[in-house]
Each structure stands twice: as C-alpha cells, then as structure tokens.
C-alpha cells in the first residue's frame, strides 16, 4: 500500500535534512510514499490566531488533495504540522456545520478512511520496530541520546502517545540501536513561537532543556519539530554565551538517527546543515561513513 507524504514548509526549506533523511528511512524499510501534489502551508504557528476557519481549511485542503490522489493515510513528519492536521480533523468531526462548510469550499467530501499518521506512531508498533532492528546497518550503541518530544507531538492528550511521559520516540530510537537515556524535559516547551520575536524567552526555555540533557549525560538530543531544532541547535551558541556555560550537544531529527542506523548514505543525512558537532552521530559508529 502507498502512503501520502506531506513535507510542509520547513522540510521544504530550512530543514531539508529532515526531509531527505525521512525519505531515506522510508526507502530503507521499503515503504512506498507519494508526496501530495501542490500542497500548501498547513498554517501552523500563525494562522490559528488570525482565522479559525483558515486554520481548519489549510490542512484539510491538503488532505482533500491527498484523497483525490488516492491516498487515505498521510504521513506528516513535522510535529507542528502534525498537530495542525489533527486539530483540523478533530474540529470537523466535532462540528458538522463546519464540516459542511469546509467540504463545500474544497469541493470534496472526506471519507472515513482518511487518517493522519505520524511516522513515530507508525514506526513504534512492535512489527515495525522488529523490522527496523533487523535492517540496521550501522551500530549506534555508543551514542547516548535523550528524546525530546516538545509540545505538539504528544499534546493535546488524545494523540497516539502518553501526553506527560511519551515513549514512542524512545522506543523507535532504541530499535535503531542508539542508547536512549531517561530524563525529565521530554515535553517541556522550547518557546519556538518566540524564537524570532521574544528571543529572551526562547533562550531561557531552551537553556532549561539543554541543561536537563546535560544533567543525565546525553551526548545528543533527538527532536521531532523544526522550531525546537532551530532553538536548540542554531541558537545553542547564543545560549552558551548568554549563560556563560557550554553544552556542545548536537541535535538530530529522529529520521536522521534512523537513517544513520539503516545505513543511508551520508549525503542523505545532510549533517552539514547543523551548527553543533554535526558529525557526532557518524563518529560514534566508528566508521567514516560511505
């Protein structure tokens, strides 16, 4: 069966590494995906404040396109987009008037088969984890990581994972062979929305998370959200300077860790896009890559 794939704006620009590595993971596990044609922004981070209607229409427009392409199950790898899609589906399921209005505007009636799937939800089933473990090509056991879920992957509470103590990413990264440590900051907020405007808030919140990772002895942080990645990786130097400390913690998307474990060529990990010790994951495998 073929799955739909919605990259979203970040994976299309600032986070090319997220996009190429998750495609590499799907390829390595022999999962067929097809990108939604002519997709538009899901409106995450801004639109829900200006227009509740548009916040529902934008994700659903993409889903209507997916269904017209014959794709009923759609992968949304970005945690922020994933949340927007979930909210939109939730809203039209609850509100029949809204549903009618949206379906009329989009000239499409959604069928019951439609499902939004986060890759971590998909990969954390027992069967998929067995497949991942069996397909491992590089040994990451020397790499100690913590998994950071952020706000949007596990909240609000009706998502696939526990809202307060999510485990799906820990399980998947463990199946990929890395050493996953327990810690207390997995669902703390990094202040992503304020990164460009009230940077002081974002720096403080992100520092607390980096501090938490350092405390348990992590050598890298694994994330699901482009905003979190930007705050933790690109702004890490700024945080170190402001708080007169040092972390030196590389931050990877879960797909990069998985792709590394599954033997993807290094150019598909696109580690050169990172600011902090990008090569650590490859160094820990003890190989020089491909």
């Amino acid at each position, binding site marked *: 069966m073929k799955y739909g794939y919605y990259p979203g704006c970040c994976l*299309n620009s*600032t986070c090319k590494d997220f996009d190429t590595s998750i495609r590499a993971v799907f390829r390595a596990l022999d999962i067929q995906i097809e990108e939604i044609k002519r997709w*538009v922004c899901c409106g995450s981070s801004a*639109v829900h404040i*200006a227009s509740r209607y548009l916040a529902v229409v934008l994700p659903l427009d993409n889903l209507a396109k997916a269904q017209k392409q014959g794709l009923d199950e759609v992968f949304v790898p970005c945690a922020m987009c994933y949340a927007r899609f979930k909210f939109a589906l939730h809203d039209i399921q609850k509100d029949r008037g809204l549903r009618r209005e949206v379906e009329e505007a989009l000239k499409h009636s959604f069928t019951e088969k439609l499902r939004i799937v986060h890759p971590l939800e998909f990969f954390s089933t027992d069967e998929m984890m067995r497949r991942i473990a069996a397909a491992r090509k590089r040994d990451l056991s020397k790499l100690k990581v913590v998994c950071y879920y952020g706000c949007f992957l596990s909240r609000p509470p009706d998502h696939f994972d526990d*809202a307060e103590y999510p485990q799906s990413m820990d399980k998947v990264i463990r199946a990929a062979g890395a050493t996953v440590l327990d810690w207390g900051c997995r669902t703390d907020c990094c202040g*992503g929305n304020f990164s460009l*405007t009230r940077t002081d808030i974002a720096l403080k919140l992100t520092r607390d998370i980096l501090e938490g990772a350092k405390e348990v002895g992590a050598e890298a942080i694994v994330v699901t959200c482009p905003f979190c990645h930007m705050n933790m990786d690109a702004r890490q130097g700024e945080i170190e300077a402001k708080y007169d400390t040092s972390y030196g913690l590389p931050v990877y998307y879960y797909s990069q860790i998985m792709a590394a474990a599954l033997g993807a060529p290094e150019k598909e990990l696109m580690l050169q896009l990172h600011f902090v010790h990008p090569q650590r994951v490859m160094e820990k495998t003890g190989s020089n890559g491909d």
Partner: protein
Amino acid sequence: MDYTPAQILHAARLGLKDLVLNSATIWLCATCETCVTRCPQGVDLVKAMDAMRAMCLSDGYKPKVPEVASFYKYALGNIQVFGRLYELGLMGRLKLATREFRKDLSLGLGLFKRGKLRILPDFGGVGEMRRMEFRGVRRKV
C-alpha cells in the same frame, strides 16, 4: 506576564474586555498546550487565548507585546501570498516592523552559509492560494 492565565480566564468570564485584550499575557502564551493537557475542568485555554488574540487585532486594540503580534500577522500574510512559508521574506518583514536590524544577524548568516535559507520563495503554493481566494476561503474569519 502581567496576569496569570487563570486570572485572564476569570476576567473574560466577568466581561472585563479591556483588561483582557490589553494584557501582555495573551501574547506571551506560547500555546504549548500543557494547561489544556492538565486542566481538570477540560478548559481549552489555548483556543480561548487564540480567540482573545484574534479579537485584540480585529477590534482595534493595541497589542501589549507588539513584536509577537507582528510575527503572527506577517507570517499569516506571508502564507497568504506564497502558499508556502518564505522564511527570508518573513524575517525581512519583521525587521522592518521592529526596526531591530542587528538582531539575529549572525544567526541569519549562519543559516544562510549552511544553505538552510531559500533565497527565493517556493512558488509551488501560490496558485493554490489564488484558487482558494476565488472561492472566498481566504477572507473568512
């Protein structure tokens, strides 16, 4: 924050519209959903905050934390024009609005050097936004 989220909600219930819409709190809520997850009464505070922010802008109030409000405003405008977020355009527009031209300069350069920033927008979504506009979707609130 000048009021706690609980105070804001209480003020909203008492109909203290000016107090609520002139507060910094509604702009300093990071929409992290922690409160929604934990509220024993099942209050969706984030949706309430969204509504209050929208009302602040539509009813002509002056946002107490203007830089945050302009981020939302320009990000929305950016998406409406391009259909897919054009980061460099958004950053430039924010700079013009806040007049803090030196802020995040080295970050921007770092992003640029690594090839993380698109110089030109991706026009793949422009036609789609036009199409939606013709159907009257865009203007609706």
